[in-house]
């Protein structure tokens, strides 16, 4: 989509169509001839993996919707019917349920990659924001999807999350009633969640289209963060990246298959195999693993409204990141200090995930009582999540803006090709010959 189109219609039909709807030209320009930096590493394959995940979720989801009954009295049993009596229903459901987790594994890697290599910086801010919108839609979709089997965790998770909106002053209670379609999580809630769970993936697909469009205008970032300078820096997307992404997708599916076939319930919660009962609350309500860091931030604050605001603030911080980062150097390869803070940030996110799965008052180190500070027990998951959450926000709002002004980056290469060409070990004979002429 950027630069001149090199598509040449070969048949009469293609010429006829090209002057009416240049759809083949668009496909050719975006997935065949599209010039892509030749130094993309495997972290860049997660975009393709995510497209695969979305497609898989939509296909399996459509089949599941043919058998599922969105009614509080039948939902749980209809899911069991899929597992027991529908041909390969167990496969379709396990692919869909584990597919959600796989989708989030891939999206988190994709986002951390963007953070590390500065893919959100100019001129890719809109690309990054569209990605954040997709992430937000994914979270809403996954949450509502988890409610549909109407197990204990589905129901009580829905109660906890919808009640969060009740913390907003003045309008809170009205919003919750409006979300529920009544005065409690009940049949109307399940019905609208099903409707929205079916709708949102198609909205995601739409925003993915915009995301790819916004990618194809400036083109891919790359591990050096240096702009593409000449045709020598790039290779056509096909066959170079179709085969590389294809290989990565295949390996990813291998890992996916281990979960689906050999531990399909490992990422779920056993309580969700108990039919929802509004009168019995599970002893320990936890969301799915991909929400745990945000759940930990929510619980880190003693005030409910503050917790809700912090949780949404954690996501909002991502949206404004392009304007918080003052560094002109994209890739952290050349920012050793930023790199260190980045890895601490990753650890903080993982620590938050751990805390989200634990009871807040349980001790982090069992049996140690010596971390008492006034009436606070610092050896508790709530305090660990406070520290990690503090770092999470500091990373975006303090460290990132200041680092760009204070750090001394390492020298970045002149162009994508130069570090490669200057390194004899990595330069096979003939590498300089224009690769874009092949394929």
């Amino acid at each position, binding site marked *: 989509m950027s630069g001149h189109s090199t598509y040449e219609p070969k048949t009469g039909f293609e010429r006829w169509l090209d002057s009416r709807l240049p759809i083949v030209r668009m496909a050719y320009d975006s997935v065949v001839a599209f010039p892509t930096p*030749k130094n993309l590493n495997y972290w860049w394959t997660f975009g393709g993996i995510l497209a695969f995940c979305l497609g898989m979720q939509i296909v399996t989801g459509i089949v599941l919707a043919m058998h599922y009954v969105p009614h509080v009295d039948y939902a749980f049993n209809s899911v069991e019917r899929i597992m027991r009596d529908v041909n390969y229903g167990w496969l379709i459901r396990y692919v869909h349920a584990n597919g959600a987790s796989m989708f989030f594994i891939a999206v988190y890697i994709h986002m951390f990659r963007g953070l590390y290599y500065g893919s959100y910086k100019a001129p890719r801010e809109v690309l990054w924001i569209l990605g954040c919108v997709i992430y937000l839609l994914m979270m809403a979709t996954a949450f509502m999807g988890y409610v549909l089997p109407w197990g204990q965790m589905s129901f009580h998770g829905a109660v906890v999350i919808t009640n969060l909106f009740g913390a907003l002053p003045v309008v809170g209670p009205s919003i919750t009633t409006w979300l529920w379609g009544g005065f409690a999580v009940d049949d109307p809630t399940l019905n609208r969640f099903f409707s929205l769970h079916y709708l949102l993936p198609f909205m995601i697909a739409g925003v993915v289209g915009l995301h790819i469009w916004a990618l194809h205008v400036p083109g891919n970032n790359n591990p050096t963060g240096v702009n593409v300078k000449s045709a020598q820096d790039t290779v056509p997307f096909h*066959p170079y990246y179709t085969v590389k992404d294809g*290989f990565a997708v*295949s390996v990813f599916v291998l890992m996916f298959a281990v979960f*689906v076939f050999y531990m399909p319930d490992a990422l779920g919660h056993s309580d969700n195999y108990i039919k929802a009962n509004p009168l019995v609350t599970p002893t320990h309500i936890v969301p799915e693993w991909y929400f745990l860091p945000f759940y930990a931030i929510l619980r880190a604050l003693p005030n409910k409204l503050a917790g809700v605001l912090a949780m949404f603030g954690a996501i909002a911080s991502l949206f404004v990141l392009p304007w918080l980062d003052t560094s002109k150097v994209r890739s952290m390869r050349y920012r050793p200090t930023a790199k260190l803070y980045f890895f601490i940030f990753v650890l903080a996110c993982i620590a938050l995930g751990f*805390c989200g799965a634990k009871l807040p008052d349980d001790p982090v180190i069992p049996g140690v009582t010596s971390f008492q500070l006034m009436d606070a027990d610092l050896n508790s998951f709530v305090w660990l999540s406070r520290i990690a959450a503090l770092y999470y926000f500091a990373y975006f709002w303090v460290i990132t803006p200041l680092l760009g002004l204070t750090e001394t980056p390492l020298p970045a290469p002149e162009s994508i090709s130069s570090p490669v060409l200057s390194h004899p070990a990595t330069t096979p004979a003939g590498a300089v010959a224009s690769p874009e002429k092949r394929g």
Partner: protein
Amino acid sequence: MLRKGLALAALGLAFLAGPALAASHPKEPKDVHWSFEGPLGKFDKAQLQRGYKVYREVCSACHAMEQMSFRNLGQKGGPFYDPKYPNPNDNPYVKSLAKDIQVKDIDQDTGDVIQRPGTSADKFPAPFPNEPAARASNGGALPPDLSLIAKAREGGPAYVYSILTGYQNPPAGLTLTASQHYNPYFPGDLTSSWHGAAHHVPQGGAIGMPPPLAPGKVTFDDGKPSTIEQQGKDVAAFLMWAAEPKMEERKQFGLGAMVYLLIFSGLLWVSYRKIWKNIGH
């Protein structure tokens, strides 16, 4: 200096996030070896048959299995599968098992509720008509549906086995009512019934179900000695099968899928190396 300090602090945090154990957590389920463990594990058909007998003669007095129909017993991978009858509804053994059980129906002429012998298409009948009836007959406790119990509890079939075989006399200092039974594997909080040292609340909880199994309570047709352990293990295996009847099909399918994906990935890897051979990157 600051950087190093921060890095060390972060590393420390990562190590601290280990598992936490509070005093009142139930005991870890016993370590049991199952035939269906591992990527190639299969159900032991004889064990499933014995397990069904334990369910039918003991558990079904109080516990429903609403997801199960008699036909399931004769389906592929089920306890009474017979390759001669690909449609499990035709399996004569399953039919005879169903016929021995009375199920509720409506008389088509009078509209009265009647009892009739079951057919292979019938669901397992529930022992109680509704929840209040179940509670009234069980000292206020509700016997949970067992269709999915082996997946609906942390620890799975090992948990079921541990509960069934783990009853103990309550330790001195623990006061339980007549309808409560001490089981160290049952999750719960015994603090309110405990009169011993405050920091030594016994593990486990008070379960409403009296010890259900006894030596010789079920006679196994294959001559297996009918110990509590054997009964518990067999019924736990049966309940795992009932919770996940497609497990064998899944693992079998998985093997093919893994082999296919490995070969496919290998081919893509070779293609990738070949296509990228002359690109310096």
